[in-house]
C-alpha cells in the first residue's frame, strides 16, 4: 500500500500542566476525504496546529509527502502542499475577496494579473463569484467560511485541513457547502476536516478519527465510529452507553 500522505506518530503536546494532545498516531491516505471528530476541548484544533506547524509537538513526528516535517514553519508546509483553514475565520479584512484569494494563488504564481485571474476561478468554484470585488469585511459568516476555503484552495494543496468549515452555518448554507467540499476531494485533493456537523461527517467522510481529551479513542468508517460505545460516552458522558443499551433492551422487552 502507498505511503499515507500524512502520518502522525506519537504526537503529544502539553500546555503547562494540561495535556492537550496525548500520543496520537494516525495516517491519512492520499486522495480521501476524512474527518476528525470529538467533543469540545478534545484537542482537535491543537492537533491541526501541530500538523501544520503552528505548534511544535513535545514529542512524536509528523511525516508529510514522504518527508519529516515535525516542527516546520507553516509557510514551508504550505509550499509542500499542506494548507489549513481556521476555526475562527481569519480574512484579510481590508482587502477584497479577489485580493484575499489571490494571496493564496501567489504561492505558485508570481504575476499579479495571473494570481487575480486564478482567484476568480477559485471563487467561481466555491460560489463566491458575485462577491469578488467586495471587501472581505462585508461578507456574512457563510461567505467568510467560503472565503477561508477558497483562499486555502488557491494554494493548490495536496492536503487541505478544514477546521469546522460548516460551523455557524444554517441548514441551507450547510447543504450548499457540502457538495463544494465533496467536489474538492473529487478533484484529487486529500481533505481532512474537523467537524461537529454530524450529517456532513456521515455523508462526506470515508474515514473518521475520534479524539477525546487529547487521545485517539476510535477510528473507522462513520457508521462504525458512531456506534462505538466509547465514542458515545465521550460525547454524552460516562455510563450513557450502558444506559442507552438498557433503555433499548427495556423497549424491546416491552414490545
Amino acid at each position, binding site marked *: 500500500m502507498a505511503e499515507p500522505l500524512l502520518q502522525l506518530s506519537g504526537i503529544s503536546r502539553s500546555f503547562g500542566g494540561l495535556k492537550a494532545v496525548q500520543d496520537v498516531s494516525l495516517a491519512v491516505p492520499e486522495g480521501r476525504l476524512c474527518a476528525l471528530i470529538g467533543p469540545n476541548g478534545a484537542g482537535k484544533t491543537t492537533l491541526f496546529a501541530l500538523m501544520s506547524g503552528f505548534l511544535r509537538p513535545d514529542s512524536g513526528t509528523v511525516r508529510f509527502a514522504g518527508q519529516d516535517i515535525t516542527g516546520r514553519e507553516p*509557510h514551508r508546509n504550505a509550499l509542500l502542499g499542506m494548507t489549513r483553514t481556521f476555526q475562527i475565520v481569519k480574512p484579510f479584512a481590508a482587502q477584497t475577496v479577489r485580493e484575499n484569494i489571490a*494571496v493564496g494563488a501567489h504561492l505558485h504564481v*508570481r504575476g499579479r*494579473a495571473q494570481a487575480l485571474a486564478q482567484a476568480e476561478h477559485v471563487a467561481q468554484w466555491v460560489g463566491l463569484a458575485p462577491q469578488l*470585488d467586495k471587501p472581505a469585511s462585508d461578507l456574512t459568516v457563510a461567505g467568510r467560511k467560503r472565503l477561508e476555503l477558497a483562499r486555502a484552495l488557491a494554494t493548490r494543496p495536496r492536503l487541505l485541513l478544514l477546521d469546522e468549515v460548516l460551523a455557524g452555518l444554517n441548514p441551507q448554507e450547510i447543504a450548499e457547502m457540502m457538495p463544494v467540499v465533496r467536489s474538492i476531494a473529487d478533484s484529487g485533493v486529500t481533505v481532512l476536516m474537523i467537524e461537529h456537523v454530524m450529517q456532513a461527517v456521515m455523508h462526506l467522510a470515508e474515514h473518521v478519527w475520534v479524539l477525546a481529551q487529547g487521545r485517539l479513542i476510535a477510528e473507522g468508517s462513520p457508521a462504525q465510529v458512531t456506534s462505538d460505545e466509547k465514542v458515545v460516552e465521550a460525547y454524552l458522558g460516562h455510563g450513557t452507553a450502558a444506559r442507552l443499551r438498557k433503555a433499548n433492551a427495556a423497549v424491546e422487552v416491552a414490545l
Partner: protein
Amino acid sequence: MSELAKQGGRQLALIALFAVLVACVPLATRSGTVLNFVMMALYATLLAQAWNILGGFGGQFSFGHALFFGTGAYIQAIAQLQGGINAWVALALAILGAALAGLFVGALSFRYGLKGSYFALVTLAFAEVFRILALSVPFTGGGVGLMVPLRESAANLQFGSRSGYLWLVLGFVVAALLLSWWLRRSRFGAYLQAVRDNEDAARAVGVNPFRIKLAAIGLSGAFMGAAGAFYVQVFQYIDPGIAYGASTSVEALVAAIVGGMGTLWGPVLGAVVLHVLADLTRNLFGELPGINMVIYGVVLVLIVIFLPRGIAGLGLSARELWKGGRHG
C-alpha cells in the same frame, strides 16, 4: 487590456504628471520662499512615505523611525568630514547604512515576534539609545553636532539655489511613489499586506512573515536614510537631537497616518497638509517652539478618532459608496 493593467497605467501616468509638474516649479518661479516651501513639503513627504512602507503597507508601527534617519544623516556627514568621501558616494553609503540599520532592528524584533505596541516601544528605545550614544561619542561631535563645510558645486551635492535640492528630493519622492505603486500590484506587496492584515492566515497560505517584514523595514530604512542625508546636505548641520530625536519620528508617522496609511498618495497628502498647517501656525504664532508638535499631536488624535483611514480614506470611502450604489 486587463482592468489591472489599465488601473496601473493610470496611476503611473498620474505619478509622471506629478513628477513633471513639481519639477517645473523651479522653472516657473525664482521665489526662494516658494522653492523652499515645495522642497520642505517634498522632504516631509519622503519621511511619510518611508514610514508608510513599514507602517502603512506592513502594519508595523515604528515610533523610532528617526533611528534610520539619523544613521543616514551621520553617515553622510562623517563620510565627508572624516573620510573625505565625495558627497554623492556618501549618499549611497548613507542609504545603505540606514537600510542595514533597518535590517538589524528588524532581524532582532521580528525574529522574536515583536508586534504592535511592543515593536513600537522597542523602536523608540533603539532611537533613544542611539541618541544618547551620539551625544557621548566623539566622532559624532557629541552634543555640538557636525557641520559640513560649504563648498558649492553639483559634484559636491551642494547647490547654489534651492532648485537642485528640490529636484534631488523630488527624485527620492518619485522613487518612493514608484515603490508604493509596485507594492500595490506585486506579489511582495500582496504578501506584505497579508502579513499586516492577518499574520497567521498569511503563514497558512505560504507567506514567510519574517522575510517579508525584514525586507519592508530595510526598504523603509533606506528611504529614511536618504531623507537624513538630504537634510545634512541642505542644512549642512546635524546633531543628536535632530538626527535621532522624537520630532522626526513623529513627523514621519503623523503625516503618513493623516494622509492615509497603506495608500499611494496618502503620505503626499498628509505631508502637504501638515506642512501647510505648520506654515500657517508659524505665521500666526511666530517661531514658538513646540507649537508645531502640538498641532501634530492634536491632528493625530483627531484623525485616529474620526478619520482612521486618513484623508485618502475619505476618497476610498467615497469610491466604495459610489460602487456600492451602482451595483446595489
